[in-house]
Structure formats: structure tokens, C-alpha cells
């Protein structure tokens, strides 16, 4: 996919996020929107995957450690063809397979159940270790929130990954700067993020613009070329990216838009889409 196609796809992913959360009347749009471009790049460019064979043995794995941003993952999987886009409207409904947090048992394309913060990264580390143990060539990607890295287990996992030199592992931090209770530096600052991963023997790529596909590509290419140590990519992102009233607003961490807000959000994204098409 070229850059414009990726941008268009990411915009469709964003529409799916807003639609799913609006339909569910609950969910986490802010952190889903901030990572939409990263999800898009992962599933349309970076990872060796096949929507027709979601469980193929040699596929790359993705673990959404910040599992509450499932709408972002689901919308991307739907765009990629794992399941119908229409199903996004069943998010969080009784009887739907689209659970509030990722459920590997029932959702095609989901490699690990997650949602309890700090746990996904450990599972991703286990998968990367597993590949090393059996000389498999698949790579493992995991996305964490910048608030999530307040969890101590994240650093247990990082210590282990660095110690074992898991260069098939990419740990991504979606640094949108906001958590439920406010700014991350006001609540309990995890900064400096990059230095922490460096101290745990990671190759660190910092200040990557999470909404610039050239920057995203460069970061993943650098990660792939890195041998002998795991890579951490710290993505600088805008929470709620693409929806005017949600951007940089902690209040939209875990709240669904009402009908009027939904109309505004979709209009915002239509405008973004039109602008991309004119490029």
C-alpha cells in the first residue's frame, strides 16, 4: 500500500472505531484513535499474516497489551478482512463475539486475550521466547499504553526480554500523554520512557510521529534490522486523533459519543477522507 492508501485505510479504521463505540454506548475511543495509524501499518504492511488463515503457524503475532483499545484492533481486523465491518456495530453487545476486551477464543485474528494492564507484554515476551526456542522466524509485536507502563509487570517483562536478547520482539508505547485521571506526568509520571527501556537493554526508537506513515515505516524497518536486542518504539500520538472534540481530551478515554457527537465525529472523519483523496 502506498502512503495515501494507508491514510485512507486508517481513516476507515477510525470511522469503524467511532461507529463501534457509538453503537456499544461504551468503550474506549481515545486510545483507539491515537493508535489507528499504527494498527493500520501493522496489519496492512508490517506483519506476515493472512486473514483467510488467521491461525497459520508462521504468522507474526500481535498482542494488544492496552486491551481496552480493542475497538481500534477490531476495526483494523475488519478492514483487513478477518470479519465483516458491519459486525463492529455489535461491539460489547450481549451475544456478540466482539467482547469489550480482546478475546482470542472467539475473535478471528486476535492472538492473545488481554485487557488487564501490564499482562499482554508478558504474553508477547513468551511468544517471542517460544519462537527462539523452536527456531521459528515469526516476529511478535505488542502495543502498550503510556499509562499502562505504570504497571510493574511491564518492567518484569522488559527485564526478561532484554536479558534474553529477544530481537524478534517489538514493544510499542502509544504515548498520547493522557490516562483516565489526567495527564500521565500529573498522575504518576512514567517519563523518561525511552531511557527506561534503554536501561532494560532495549534498542529504543523515540519520538516517532504515530500519525506519519513514513515515520512509522522507518521505525519498524529499524526494529527489523536490529539484532541482539529487543526494540521499543515510543510513538508520540494524539489521543482521539481525527475527531476534533476528542483530540487531547482525557474525558474521551472511555466514553461513547451520543448521536449528535457521533454525527460530528463522522463528519470530521469524512473531511479528513476528502482531504486525503485530494492529495
Amino acid at each position: 500500500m502506498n502512503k495515501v492508501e494507508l491514510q485512507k485505510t486508517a481513516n476507515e479504521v477510525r470511522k469503524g472505531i467511532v461507529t463501534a463505540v457509538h453503537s456499544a454506548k461504551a468503550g474506549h475511543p481515545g486510545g483507539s484513535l491515537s493508535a489507528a495509524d499504527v494498527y493500520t501499518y501493522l496489519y496492512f504492511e508490517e506483519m506476515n499474516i493472512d486473514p483467510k488463515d488467521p491461525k497459520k503457524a508462521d504468522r507474526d503475532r500481535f498482542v494488544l497489551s492496552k486491551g481496552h483499545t480493542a475497538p481500534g484492533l477490531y476495526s483494523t481486523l475488519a478492514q483487513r478482512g478477518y470479519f465483516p465491518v458491519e459486525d463492529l456495530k455489535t461491539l460489547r453487545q450481549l451475544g456478540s463475539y466482539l467482547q469489550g476486551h480482546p478475546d482470542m477464543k472467539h475473535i478471528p485474528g486476535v492472538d492473545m486475550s488481554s485487557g488487564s494492564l501490564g499482562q499482554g507484554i508478558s504474553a508477547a515476551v513468551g511468544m517471542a521466547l517460544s519462537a527462539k526456542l523452536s527456531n521459528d522466524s515469526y516476529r511478535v509485536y505488542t502495543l502498550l499504553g503510556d499509562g499502562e507502563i505504570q504497571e510493574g509487570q511491564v518492567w518484569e517483562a522488559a527485564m526478561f526480554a532484554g536479558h534474553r536478547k529477544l530481537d524478534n520482539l517489538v514493544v510499542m508505547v502509544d504515548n498520547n500523554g493522557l490516562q483516565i485521571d489526567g495527564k500521565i506526568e500529573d498522575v504518576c509520571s512514567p517519563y523518561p520512557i525511552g531511557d527506561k527501556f534503554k536501561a532494560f537493554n532495549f534498542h529504543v526508537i523515540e519520538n516517532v510521529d504515530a500519525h506519519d506513515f513514513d515515520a512509522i515505516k522507518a521505525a519498524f524497518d529499524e526494529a527489523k534490522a536490529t539484532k541482539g536486542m529487543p526494540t521499543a518504539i515510543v510513538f508520540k500520538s494524539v489521543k482521539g486523533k481525527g475527531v476534533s472534540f476528542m483530540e487531547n481530551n482525557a474525558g474521551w478515554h472511555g466514553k461513547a459519543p451520543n448521536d449528535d457527537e457521533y454525527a460530528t465525529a463522522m463528519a470530521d472523519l469524512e473531511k479528513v477522507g476528502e482531504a486525503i483523496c485530494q492529495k
Partner: protein
Amino acid sequence: MSEVVKVATRDSYGNALVECGKEYPNLVVLDADLAAATKTGTFLKAFPERHIDCGIAECNMVGIAAGLAATGKIPFVSSFAMFAAGRAFEQVRNSVAYPHLNVKIGATHAGISVGEDGATHQCNEDIALMRSIPGMVVINPSDDVEAKAAVKAAIEHDGPVYLRFGRLATPVINDTPDYKFELGKGVVLREGKDVAIIATGLCVAEALAAADKLAADGISAKVINIHTIKPLDEELVLAAAKETGKVVTVEEHSVIGGLGSAVCDCLSEKAPTPVLKIGVNDVFGESGPATKLIAKYGLDAEGIYSKVKSFV
């Protein structure tokens, strides 16, 4: 009579892992800096490349095991019961059991028979914790023979299994030619008509000895070994309750939430029967030699005997 052979089930665990490691190339053992104590060090010697020391980080270890299981390995995570079931409870629940991943938890140093380390390391709550998780199998073997068989059965079962092992060397009671381990099936070790003593773990041998003493007093006690606490052999429990009209449960675990509770859950619904729960009575343990602690907390043959006698 020949001398009683005693083996700690943590040793059985280490030995069984080596045996099974030969048969299952995808078996991987994880430990958290306790390989010498949990006896996974035995496996480390035999299969160094398949022994993963995670350092002192049990929550991460359980998560790593989840990732290993999700990619086709059969991981055994090993630590003391306190940390495997206690500290890492939520990781076991959410990362292992919710996705029903094929992770086996080998928890050693369960109960007060940890001895000198005292209350911080004496986990009397692990059965209760693990039993409450949907889809979790909970096994508490009674001796060396059963512990080794349980490891094998855990591998053959697809899904999460919690295995409880002890630090103290205890009598081997199952070394019979026809011994067979069946997951979820209790074992009648002695017939009796006045009372049914349902025991688990190291308390099984003590219950058998107590039954001898009761017999000398003219009390006929049926003794059942429940190695699988979940799923419980309800059929056997119900039959024993109906047969004897009085049930005693014995476990080296809190009387809250363990075998006693599992038996009461079953009986209260299907065949209300008076039950005496013998276990650790909602208190913490303390430092001391294991055998003296077992006696002090009333879990030895003498303690079981006197409680059953006044109950019957």
C-alpha cells in the same frame, strides 16, 4: 512390615518433569529463582535449553507461560504455592484461564508443612483461589506415586491445571501394582460404614492411620483420597455420604474454600449430610518443624482420630 518410604512430592514433581520431558519435546519448564527448592533443577540438568529461569518475577513468568502455550508449547510454571496461586492469581485468571491456555502450574511448598519459613510462605489458600477460576483443574496428590502420575495426567489434559506439591517427605501409600491415576476420580482406600473420611494431599496417609485407631475403638471409617479437587468426583462423595451418613474432610489448607468447601458445596445441594471440616481454621501458620506444625494444627493421625471420634 517393611520400613515406610517417604518422599516429598516436590521431588516427585522434578523427577516426573524429566520423565515427561523425554516424551514431550515441547514441554518447557519455567521457574522464578527457586529451581533448587521446587526441584525443577532436576529438569534443568536434563534439558537445560528447555528450562527458563524468569528471575524473581512470578507474574511475568505466568504471562510468559501464556505466550508459550499460545504458540504450542506445554509450559510448567513453578514456584511456591504462595506466589504461583497468590501473587500471580490475576495473571493465572486473566492470561491463562480466561483464554483456556495449556499452562500447567506446579506449585510446591503448599500448606503449613513448609515448616520453619513460617506464615508468609505457608499458603493455605491456594486451593480456594484456584478452584474459583472457571476451567481450572486442581490436583493435590497424596504421595510420590500419585504426584508423578498427576504430572503426566496434567500434560494429557488440554487446558490449565494447578498441581499442588509439598516440601515435607511423606509416606508412599500408592505403590501398588494396580495403581491408576484418573483425573477427577476419587479413590476409596478403605471401606467403612460409620463415617467417611475424605482427605487430600499429605492428609490422606494421616487419615488412613486415624482410621486404624478408630477401628480399634470399634468405629468403622471409610477413607477416600480426593486427589482432584476440581472437578470433584461428586458421584463418589455422594455415595459415601449416603452410605455412612457422616462426612469428615481433611486437608492441609484453610477450612475456607478448599476440599471441605468443595464437598459441602456438593452435599448441601444434592444430599445434605453433616460434615466436619478438618483443616487450618482461618488462622495463619507459624514457624516450626513441619511434623510438629501438622500435629499442632490437628492434621496428624492423632488429631484426625480425636476429632472424628467426637464427631461420630
